[in-house]
């Protein structure tokens, strides 16, 4: 095990104000179980889970309430004992509506339909839900199955099902397992705290993942502004066998982007979509996900809770909170002492890629890394002007695109021109809009173009399928 400086530097990137000092020294605190949970069936990338419960049902902590629905999907388990109040469409952080199970955690177990069952374990007991596995003796298939059963998906942001990532298609081999501890999003410190406080779990998770993936080399990527996390990882991994390196990344947004992290740590370039990291022999996992894998295997504990950073200048006391999935944002804010002043903007996630939300009545998911309450002073609001061709967005774009050209094309409703300018390669990191002196909403234009292109491709596919059938 050794610590090295990142040997490769990608082009572009920006330096937003990190504002991490608000919550970085706040140890993880466990939230008392909220009275109501809003558990979304769409907590991950891919098809939403199929809801298995109906109003009136009594569910036990860890019980599968949403079934994996397709290849790119994960199951959803009840984060706590409770009675299903309702199953209804609820607003998600990204603005869309998805089925959600509304759980009343105060309901007494007597309301369970099977009143004659043996004494149920106390509410939210630590008793294991899945049988603990000894990772050293368990087979690769058993471990993979466990990751899937535990409902684990990437906790860094996109929420890609982890069991899919850990099971490369035939003919593809994972040579490098990259641990993403960059946490380059402003304000967020959840991963940082996990690295500090759960270093042993991360170590165990890495060993389990190495076994599943066939002993790849391991690279632990951490930004240079987190020396405590680097030290914690160095200590945890000090005596590990095999090719393991801690790679110290320069402080630059978006170091946490999968493609850029692979380049920064092992110097490989992931080709254009639909290529995936595995095509260049890499698997990237967020540090929180790795710790969740350790819990799922060793303790039989599915992914039912996560650490979320609640921060921003409009919250009384910023905190890193361990909360069950489905915790309403309002409960998180209340646990932080409430609002210091009415927030002008509430963001689910970080300031660069997070979603502005309209209400605090949204439940957290497996991917909710942060909740930010920003006052009017921290919110910029300007009318966007004409592009002056300054080139800042080109220099900032880590994908080496021409965002100015794309945004002008989208303004002119010329989606074809945006497509020709490789808009589909855009990772929506926000670096272009961040530096635009004309306050143009370039990232939003890229998103718009990508959505219309995706819709067009889907329509073409449907048309082709219809033509085939007729």
């Amino acid at each position, binding site marked *: 095990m050794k610590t090295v400086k990142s040997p490769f530097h990608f082009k572009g990137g920006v330096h937003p104000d990190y504002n991490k000092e608000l919550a970085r020294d706040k140890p993880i605190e466990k939230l008392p179980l909220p009275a109501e949970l809003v558990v979304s069936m769409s907590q991950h990338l891919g098809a939403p889970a199929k809801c298995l419960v109906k109003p009136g049902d009594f569910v036990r902590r860890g019980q599968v309430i949403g079934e994996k629905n397709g290849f790119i999907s994960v199951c959803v388990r009840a984060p706590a004992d409770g009675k299903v109040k309702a199953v209804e469409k609820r607003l998600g952080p990204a603005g869309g509506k998805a089925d959600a199970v509304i759980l009343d955690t105060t309901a007494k177990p007597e309301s369970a339909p099977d009143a004659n069952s043996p004494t149920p374990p106390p509410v939210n007991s630590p008793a294991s839900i899945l049988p603990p596995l000894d990772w050293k003796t368990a087979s690769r298939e058993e471990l993979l199955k466990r990751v899937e059963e535990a409902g684990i998906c990437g906790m860094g942001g996109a929420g890609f099902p982890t069991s899919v990532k850990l099971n490369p298609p035939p003919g593809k081999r994972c040579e490098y397992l990259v641990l993403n501890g960059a946490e380059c999003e402003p304000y967020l410190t959840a991963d940082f705290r996990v690295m500090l406080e759960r270093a042993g779990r991360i170590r165990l998770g890495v060993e389990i993942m190495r076994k599943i993936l066939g002993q790849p080399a391991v690279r632990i990527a951490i930004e240079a502004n987190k020396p405590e996390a680097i030290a914690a990882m160095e200590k945890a991994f000090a005596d590990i066998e095999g090719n393991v390196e801690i790679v110290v990344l320069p402080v630059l947004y978006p170091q946490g982007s999968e493609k850029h992290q692979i380049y920064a740590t092992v110097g490989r370039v992931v080709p254009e979509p639909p290529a995936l990291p595995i095509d260049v022999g890499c698997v990237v996992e967020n540090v929180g996900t790795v710790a969740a894998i350790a819990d799922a295997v060793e303790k039989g504990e599915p992914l039912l809770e996560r650490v979320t950073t609640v921060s921003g200048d409009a919250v009384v006391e910023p905190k890193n909170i361990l909360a069950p999935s489905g915790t309403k944002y309002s409960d998180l804010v209340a646990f932080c002492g409430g609002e210091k002043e009415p927030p002008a903007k509430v963001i689910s996630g970080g300031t660069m890629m997070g979603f502005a939300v*309209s209400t605090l009545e949204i439940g957290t998911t497996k991917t909710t890394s942060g909740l930010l309450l920003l006052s009017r002073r921290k919110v910029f*609001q300007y009318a966007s002007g004409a592009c002056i061709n300054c080139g800042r967005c080109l220099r900032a774009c880590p994908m080496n695109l021409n965002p100015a050209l794309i945004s002008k094309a989208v303004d002119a409703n010329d989606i074809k021109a945006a497509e020709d300018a490789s808009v589909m390669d855009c990772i929506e990191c*926000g670096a272009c809009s961040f530096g635009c002196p*004309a306050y143009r909403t370039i990232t939003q234009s890229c998103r718009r173009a990508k959505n219309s292109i995706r819709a067009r491709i889907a329509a073409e596919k449907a048309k082709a399928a219809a033509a085939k059938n007729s």
Partner: protein
Amino acid sequence: MKPKDTSEHYILSSSPHAHSNASVSRIMLDVIIALLPTTAMGIYFFGMPAVWTIAVCVSTCIVTEALCRLAMKRENTIGDLSAVLTGLLLALNLPAGIPLWMAVLGSVFAIAIAKQVFGGLGMNPFNPALAARAFMLISFTGPMTTWLKPFWWKTPEAATTATPLAVMKTWFVAEATASASPHGLCNAACKGVPSLCDMLVGNMPGCIGEVSAIALAIGAVYLLWRKVITWHIPVSFIATVFVYSLIAGGAPAMMQVLTGGVMIGACFMATDYVTSPITAKGKLVFGFGCGLLCMLIRQFGAYPEGCSFAILIMNALCPLVNRWTQPRPFGAK
């Protein structure tokens, strides 16, 4: 029961929710700040006529911008300072003794015809100040090529003179005909051309803002430090002029760089965002083209100076250069 939204009216917008605080007006202000040293030197050498020309150009540009926006029923944009900058740049590219009504006409042309007709800032194909200068050079050739001597008030009987460029142009001819005698050239040099030191400081006839190479260099360094411009255009422009004159002969290469509009052109006019390519590669091509055309005009053209025409021609080619030099996405084959 549906949760009730109470007093929550949070601002909704697409990410990112952070901004670097860069702004168009700050960029324009930076360029204006960068032009202050050369403005001061111009006023020092050419006196009150320079002050009046600058004042008239700047104020006319602001008024024209406001009136154009009003007529077009669009929001007022004088706050972005681009009109101020255009006025200042135009003034710095005029001889100090220009009749003020001509300066007014040039300023109106710069803003109304070269900029607002195309839709305002960001839409104009040509650098407004240079387009106006070209318009004035063609319309008022005499006054536009009548140069005040530095400190002209000390010798009021012979206040005007030719620029060193006019003298240097003859050297190309001299060299071609008189089998290049270095001795003869030196004699010519002694007659009409300032010393290297004078050229650096700006103690020579020329446009208000183009004479002082040192002041322009200070401004350029400021712009580079503020990351308003990149090195690509100034370096490739000036290097092309230098190498061309080494190869082609005529006046010494250093003299070609320090006289006329090369310095102000390379650092301030060719680096205009709107009318120059957006990629680094494109900027290198653009700077090279400007330098080459400038020297071709200086050697073969009808005018002694070709800097502004060179930049205007490259402005026209800018979309083409952009097209050729599109960046290749990270990970693309």
